[in-house]
């Protein structure tokens, strides 16, 4: 305790800056790191209680045993062996789980390609062709509003259009293009992909738009001045600079479709199997360890996809 301040204090009390009256007048200052904890702590607690710990439980329970009506907290690999049943015995035929995942990946790929195409051009139009800020805001808002309304309603909304007697079918019959209403428009893979695109293109538009508005317009003019065609500018300037947005949008869309069970259920007429639907089915049968095992598998696959994609871009830098 032999600092110079102490010595000064002993010599002439009351003269030290920040001591005595000055310090007493101010209420005790909380240290900045303590304030940060107070501010960020509540949100951290919510994620801990309702996200991180539940994930741990999913992993633990996936190794528990079960019978027809309850969980048995004893180690067992049954959740996994039940899931992969027949995968080796049936070779070279694919087992159910492999088929289901292939189907899910196929849906995922289709939806990804279509949302990327639509999302890219919608964002491009908003970012480069709409010059006035007010219009840009208004049109972005127009794209966002459906996101604030119910997904189920937006799915049901296709029924009067695509059903057997729906607008599309009756229109096609009237024009003579087909003789009988076609059945594959609704409750089919087609309607699932359509609805997923309808619901989730938004997740592509926003990040791509965000990347695009940050592109310095003089770069594009420079490319133009240097004699690049519109196509060359697009491929060599705009797409590379919009890549972070493209990757983030892709991660959103792919993870949503991988885990989806509601859209696939409603629009597939509850007939199409998918990764998320297996989990739901197992839960409904009260086979929680099997549901948890499927959740772990889905989590691992989703995580692999994200890791692969985030190799391309540092997410944290882009926000």
């Amino acid at each position, binding site marked *: 305790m032999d600092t110079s301040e102490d010595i000064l204090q002993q010599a002439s009390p009351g003269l030290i800056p920040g001591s005595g009256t000055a310090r007493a007048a101010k209420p005790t200052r909380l240290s900045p*790191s303590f*304030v*940060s*904890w*107070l*501010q*960020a702590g*509540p*949100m*951290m607690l*919510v*994620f801990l209680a*309702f*996200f*991180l*710990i*539940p*994930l741990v439980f*999913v992993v633990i329970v996936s190794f528990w045993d079960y019978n027809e009506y309850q*969980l048995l907290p004893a180690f067992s690999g049954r959740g996994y062996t039940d899931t992969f049943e027949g995968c080796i015995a049936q070779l070279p035929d694919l087992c159910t789980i492999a088929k289901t995942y292939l189907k899910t990946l196929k849906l995922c790929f289709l939806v990804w390609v279509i949302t990327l195409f*639509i999302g890219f051009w*919608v964002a*491009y*139009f908003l970012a480069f*062709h709409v010059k006035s800020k007010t219009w840009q805001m208004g*049109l972005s808002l127009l*794209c966002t509003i*459906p996101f*604030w*309304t*119910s*997904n*189920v309603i937006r799915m*049901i*909304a296709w*029924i*009067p*259009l695509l*059903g057997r007697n729906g*607008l599309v079918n009756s229109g096609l019959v009237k024009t003579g293009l087909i003789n009988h209403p076609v059945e594959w428009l609704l409750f089919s893979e087609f309607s699932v992909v359509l609805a997923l695109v*309808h619901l989730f*293109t938004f997740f592509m538009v926003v990040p791509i738009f965000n990347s695009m508005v940050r592109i310095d317009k003089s770069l594009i003019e420079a490319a133009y001045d240097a004699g690049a065609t*519109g196509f060359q500018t697009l491929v060599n300037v705009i797409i590379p600079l919009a890549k972070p947005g493209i990757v983030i949008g892709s991660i959103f869309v792919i*993870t949503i479709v991988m*885990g*989806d*069970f*509601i859209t696939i259920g409603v629009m597939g007429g*509850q007939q199409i199997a998918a990764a*998320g639907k297996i*989990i*739901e089915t197992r*839960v409904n049968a009260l086979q*929680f360890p099997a549901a*948890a095992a499927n*959740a772990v598998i*889905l989590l691992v696959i989703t995580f692999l996809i*994200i890791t692969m994609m985030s190799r391309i871009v540092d997410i*944290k830098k882009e*926000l």
Partner: protein
Amino acid sequence: MKEGRPRSFYVLAIFFAAYVLFLYGPMIAIYVLSFQGPQGGLTFPMNGVSTFWIAKLFQGTGIVDLGAAFRRSLLLGIIVMIVTVVLSVAAGMAFRRKFKAQSILFYSAIASLIVPSIITSLGISLEFRIIDDLIKAHWNENFETSMGLLTSGLGAHLTWTLPFGLLIMFAIFNRFDPRLEEAARDLGATPWQAFRHVVLPIILPSVIGIGLFGFTLSWDELARSSQAIGAVNTLPLDLQGLTTTVTNPDIYALGTVISAVSFTVITLALGTIHMLNKRQAAKGSDAGKGLV
């Protein structure tokens, strides 16, 4: 560079218009169809115009107890909105300084956003089941369940709304001029006064945006509620239950009523944001403008 618009503008404008039509067309179709006449079916053409199906919904003669589910969803939505706003603003303020566990919180939020909802939902339901079992085994044999709308249900919704709230806060503070706050401090404001009288009024329009996300995402939430809501249903869950047995337009009527609430909230929020922005523009100081 005044050459008129390039041809690509018109091509993309048509593309954009088609996209907007694709977004809104089907929704508008069911809003119209919910005003079918009493004999009307599930598709066009309209069979007369009436409020028969909407009235039927409110009489409670329909398939679900709409009133109860409506009140539950509204209550949950409002609580989720308030909690999301408070926690997001607080955490957003924390992120302006460096603090330990910063990246843990950031990655938790991102992970919570992109881990498939069904997994989070299943996890919460397992967590509460295990808590129930522990309570039954050690304290109270007659204990029913700790799962419910405002426990597991609220938590499930927050894992979905909080990441959006936090990301919006990041966007706000990316554009925020910290000198304004420093000026307030230099004039002797306490940190709370600087927040209350300087920071909050500036970020208020975006904070209302967070509230808008909080309410609407909760109001329409389905995937995370599915396993974690407990014994009772929210409005979207009831609606989803109806989709398997669609036979008459009351499902459209229900959809229209749910959307009416969404659109009311959206209009209120956007209106308030617009008003605040206008007031800021009118009353805000013009100090420093014209100097650059």
